[in-house]
């Protein structure tokens, strides 16, 4: 009888660990890190103050950003290049205009926030003009993307050159 009880307790314990491991595999839980591309949940924006929450400070940690997005993960972004960095792919829901937009966040090799892209349309731009008035320096470009990169002292770290040839990165990174 005693032996049967021990076996039952062991079985209960094992099932608990199995459920826990399934949970850990299916989501990143509190550790926002993942080795393959992973799409995190949606952050709902009701007003300009919510939008301001996306103005992350330079070098913000993934854990802080994870507070906004359910099931937030970052993935190893080393692909076709020797440089390691990390990225996250999420969605932002602008409740007023009933529109959801893709939101990519990029981190450096030390997992510090560097820059994000929000893939928008003209409806969103109109909403932004009507509802948003801030000194925060977002940029909008001709490719339908809003970009935010906080100011940091990185002057003269990089020199870029333009060369003729095919881009060596896979298409799925292109918006």
């Amino acid at each position, binding site marked *: 009888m005693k032996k049967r009880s021990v076996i039952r307790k062991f079985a209960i314990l094992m099932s608990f660990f199995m459920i826990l491991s399934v949970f850990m595999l299916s989501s990143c839980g509190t550790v926002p890190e993942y080795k393959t591309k992973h799409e995190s949940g949606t952050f709902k924006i009701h007003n300009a103050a919510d939008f301001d929450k996306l103005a992350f400070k330079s070098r913000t940690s993934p854990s802080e950003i994870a507070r906004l997005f359910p099931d937030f993960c970052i993935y190893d972004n080393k692909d076709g*290049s020797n440089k390691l960095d990390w990225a996250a792919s999420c969605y932002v829901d602008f409740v007023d205009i009933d529109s959801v937009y893709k939101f990519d966040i990029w981190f450096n090799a030390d997992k510090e926030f560097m820059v994000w892209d929000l893939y928008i349309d003209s409806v969103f731009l109109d909403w932004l003009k009507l509802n948003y008035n801030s000194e925060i320096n977002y940029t909008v470009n*001709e490719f339908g993307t809003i970009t935010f990169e906080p100011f940091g002292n990185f002057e003269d770290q990089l020199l870029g050159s333009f060369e003729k040839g095919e881009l060596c990165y896979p298409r799925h990174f292109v918006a």
Partner: protein
Amino acid sequence: MATPKLDSIERQLKAGEPFSLTNSQYKKSTGLDIPKNSNYLVRNSAVAKKARIYGYRIVIHEREISFEKE
């Protein structure tokens, strides 16, 4: 909300010759700092997308020093 001015770079891209830019030259022609994240700069930035249209890729030359025994 700022917009990167890529006209000047586009003119050089149209010329079809390889060329290089320093940070300050980039800022002077676009009005913005060059994106700091290297992978983002070469893959996803507006200037990378513009370069791709004209058959270019961006190559980053990072400044580094090495100490060698004489």
